[in-house]
Structure formats: C-alpha cells, structure tokens
C-alpha cells in the first residue's frame, strides 16, 4: 500500500524539569516543616501555654512507636490500626454502594429527580449528628460501638463519592456517547464502557475526599465512645491529664495516616487511569 507508507512523527520529548528546580522544591518543603517546628519551639519556650517542646514530643512519639503506651499496653501503630480497620471497612462499603448508585443517578434522568430531594436533605446533616440515632438503632446489635462507628464513617464517605460520581457522569463527553450509539452499542455497553470510564477521574476524586472525611469521622466517633482507637486515645490522654505530648503524638499520627491514604488513592488512580 504505497499511498499509506507515511510515518507519523513521534511526539517530541517533553523537556524534563531541571534539577535545580527540583532542588528548590525540596528545599521549600523542608523549610515549611522547619518553620512550623521553630514556631512551636518559640511558643513552648515562652512557657505561656501548656505546651511541651518539639524535642520532648518527638521523644514521646518515638517511644510510643517502639515501646508503646504503658497505660494501654499498645504501640501507636496498633492504636492507629484499630481505627483504620473500621475506616477501611466502612469506606469500602460506602464506595461499593455510592459508585453504582451515582452511575445510575447520573445516567437515568427520572431516578435522579426521584432521589434528589431526599439526598439534598440528608446531605447537610453532619455525619457526627447521626451518632445518637445510630446508638439507638444498633443498641441490640452484637457490637453496637463498632457498628455505630462503621455507620458514621460510612455516612461521611458516602456523599462525596456519590456526588462526584454523578458529576463525573454529567461530564462525559456527549460526542463519545453519540459515537457509541452510531456503532450500535447497547445501553449496557454505553454505561459500562463509556460512562463509567469517562467518570472515573471524578470518581477517584470522590474516593480521595471520602476517605479523608471517613478518617476524620472515626476520630470524632471514638470521642463519644469506643474501646480503643486513635480518637479514643487522644481523648483519654486528655482525661487522664498531663499527657500533652501523647495528645500531640496522636494528632501527628492522624495527620500522617491521612496524608498516606490520600497519596495511596492518587497512586492507585494513576495506575488505573493510564490514558491521562
């Protein structure tokens, strides 16, 4: 086929970011951490507030990681893990329900209208406001505390995922749907192979936000009740009194785990959405 023996040009190599630029970025990141610690040190040094120094806190933090807390006979990792288990269970449950529901609501007009009113009324209720009702509902269940915590995290993660899925479906380019229709695609094929992948970037955004809110919800849910977990730990450290370094260590653990979750979702997104 002589007429078609043309060779398309390869896309030009992207100019890599220069090394010095990357170096500056690292320096800025380091500087932001240094600023916070220096500010903390300054405030602690003035003895105006009941605040341990950064070094004292770091010692406690490392101690909690290695030897654990003698009061509970648990390391910080074990405490975090017991909260994280609940969050993972609850978030997965909420994604499994919210994503299909969002795809359906985004693509079926009457279903959207049918459920919109109820959802718009439920959405502004803070997840934590569900705690008292949840305790009543699950009072006779086998492990009421755990069920309440799963329920609250579920509510917290549910709406961001649902709304971002609906939004993602509405962003699917109509030209892709028309193209699929002219090829004779079935409704099922359009839903699963056009709308779902088209909405995937937005769905991932919802999952990232949902996990974040779920992680916040577990801390608050454990303040109200629970046996062990990171929220319970910092609240009971306060109740015991004089354990400010333990409280800050617990807060630091919450922050670290939260940002790891967010990075993991972004990493997963890059692996699952290779076309972007």
């Amino acid at each position, binding site marked *: *086929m002589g007429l078609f023996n*043309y060779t*398309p040009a390869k896309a030009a190599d992207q100019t890599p970011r220069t090394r010095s630029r990357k170096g500056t970025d690292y320096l800025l990141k380091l500087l932001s951490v240094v600023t916070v610690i220096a500010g903390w040190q300054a405030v602690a040094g003035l003895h105006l507030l009941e605040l341990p120094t950064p070094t004292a806190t770091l010692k406690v933090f490392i101690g909690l990681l290695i030897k654990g807390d003698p009061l509970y006979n648990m390391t910080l990792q074990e405490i975090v893990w017991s909260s994280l288990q609940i969050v993972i269970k609850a978030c997965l449950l909420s994604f499994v329900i919210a994503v299909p529901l969002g795809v359906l609501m985004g693509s079926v007009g009457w279903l959207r209208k049918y459920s919109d009113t109820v959802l718009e009324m439920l959405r502004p209720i803070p997840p934590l406001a569900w705690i008292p009702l949840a305790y009543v509902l699950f009072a006779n269940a086998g492990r009421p505390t755990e069920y309440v915590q799963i329920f609250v995290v579920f509510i917290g993660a549910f709406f961001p995922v649902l709304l971002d899925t609906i939004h993602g479906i509405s962003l699917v380019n109509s030209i892709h749907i*028309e*193209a699929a229709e*002219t*090829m*004779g695609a079935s409704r099922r094929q359009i839903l699963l192979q056009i709308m779902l992948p088209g909405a995937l970037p937005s769905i991932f955004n919802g999952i990232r936000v949902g996990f974040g809110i779920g992680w916040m919800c577990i801390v608050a849910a454990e303040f109200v009740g629970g046996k062990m977990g990171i929220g319970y730990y910092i609240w009971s450290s306060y109740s015991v009194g004089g354990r400010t370094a333990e409280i800050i260590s617990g807060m630091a653990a919450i922050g670290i785990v939260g940002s790891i979750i967010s990075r993991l979702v972004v990493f997963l997104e890059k692996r699952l959405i290779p*076309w972007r």
Partner: protein
Amino acid sequence: MALILRGVTHRFGETKIFEDLDLQVEEGCFCCIVGPSGCGKSTLLRIIAGLYRPVKGEVLLDNKPPSLDKGEIGFVFQEDALFPWFTVEENIKFGLRARKVDKSSWGQIIEHNLQKVGLADYRDYYPSQLSGGMKQRVAIARVLAYNPKLLLMDEPFASLDSLNRNMLQTELIDLWAREKKTILFVTHNIDEAVFLAERLIVMGSKPGRIKRVLDINLPRPRNRTDTEFCRNRRSILEIIES
C-alpha cells in the same frame, strides 16, 4: 437508490432547522454537502444516522429506515470522538463487540483496517499519544472495521492543518475508490468539497434548504491548482453567496 430523504423537516423548539428536504444519493456515490455554518448540515447527518428523529418526513436506506443497532452507518465526527480510555485497538474492538462480529476474526480485521490508514504499528497507543491527523485516521478505521453501508462524515478534517488535511483527503479518495462505500461528507470548505465530491449538494441557511445539486466531473487525481478546478470552486462560491 441507496439513500433517500423525503420531506424531512426538523426544528429545535420554535427554531426551524430545515424544512421539507428531499435528497437522493446513489449507492457508491461520494457526496459532499457544503453550506454556511448554521444551515443544519450536522443536524442533517445526525438525522440520517438516526441520532435525532425528524419532526416530519422519512429517511430510507435501501428502502428501510436506518436503525442504529444494525451497524449500517459509520459516523466520523469533527471532534475527536475516540474513547480516550481505550487504546487504538480497543477502540476498534468496541465497534466490533457492539456489532457482534465473530470474535475469532477480530485480530485480522483490526490489523487490516489499521493498515488501510497506515497505523498498523499503533495498536497499543492511547489516543492522547496520537496527533490530530492520526486520531482521525483511527476514527475512520474504527468505523470501516464493522463494514457499514454508508459513511457519514461531519467535517472530519476541519481541525487539521492544511497539509495534513490535503493528505487525508487523498487517502480518503483512495479508500473510497477501493471500498466503493457510499459517503456523505459535510464540509464548509469549498476547496475540500471540489477535491472530494462526485456530487455536490449546496445548502442555504435560515431555514436550511438545498439550493443546488450538481455533479463534479473533474478527472481524478484532481489538481487543486488546475484551471478547471478553480473554475468549479468559483462557481460554487457564487451559488453559496447568491
């Protein structure tokens, strides 16, 4: 007669898009529709494809109304309509799956149709890795793969630079000469229309209507700088502006 339109009328709300349109396109004809923007060219193609239902009138393809799920029609869009989450190969597979083409023949069909458009080495590329011209080549291969009777092309080369556009026009004419498909090609570029068409339909706007249908009998390969070519181009411009 391959394609017949009788009294086709369409409105968007109160706005008349076109009224009482009659048209006949013979099998194997390369037919171009030119006209100013807003004359309803794209809407007309979508009605023929069955994407929109006309308010009045009928469309017949081989004496039957065309239906979306029979795969009689291949539509090539102006915009990039490749699915970005599928590779080149998967994009073609989507159409084959929709058409329920026997799976054992997929490999050969994909290979064959990518060769037709000169992209056999690009099976595993994502659309985002291809240039505009390559994307439209894949879009053409994607519809050719399920072997439609009628090819509807809605300004498919409008977003390409002029060199690329000329190249694709030549390739399209070669494809048409070999495959003998009926092609309905919408454009607002008169040069493109004169270069491609056997039959030219000139549309006017407000409301959209057919002003003139004429045959272009220039021998192929056509030369854009040829005196006859330029004379044709001038007379069509006059019809459009009249």
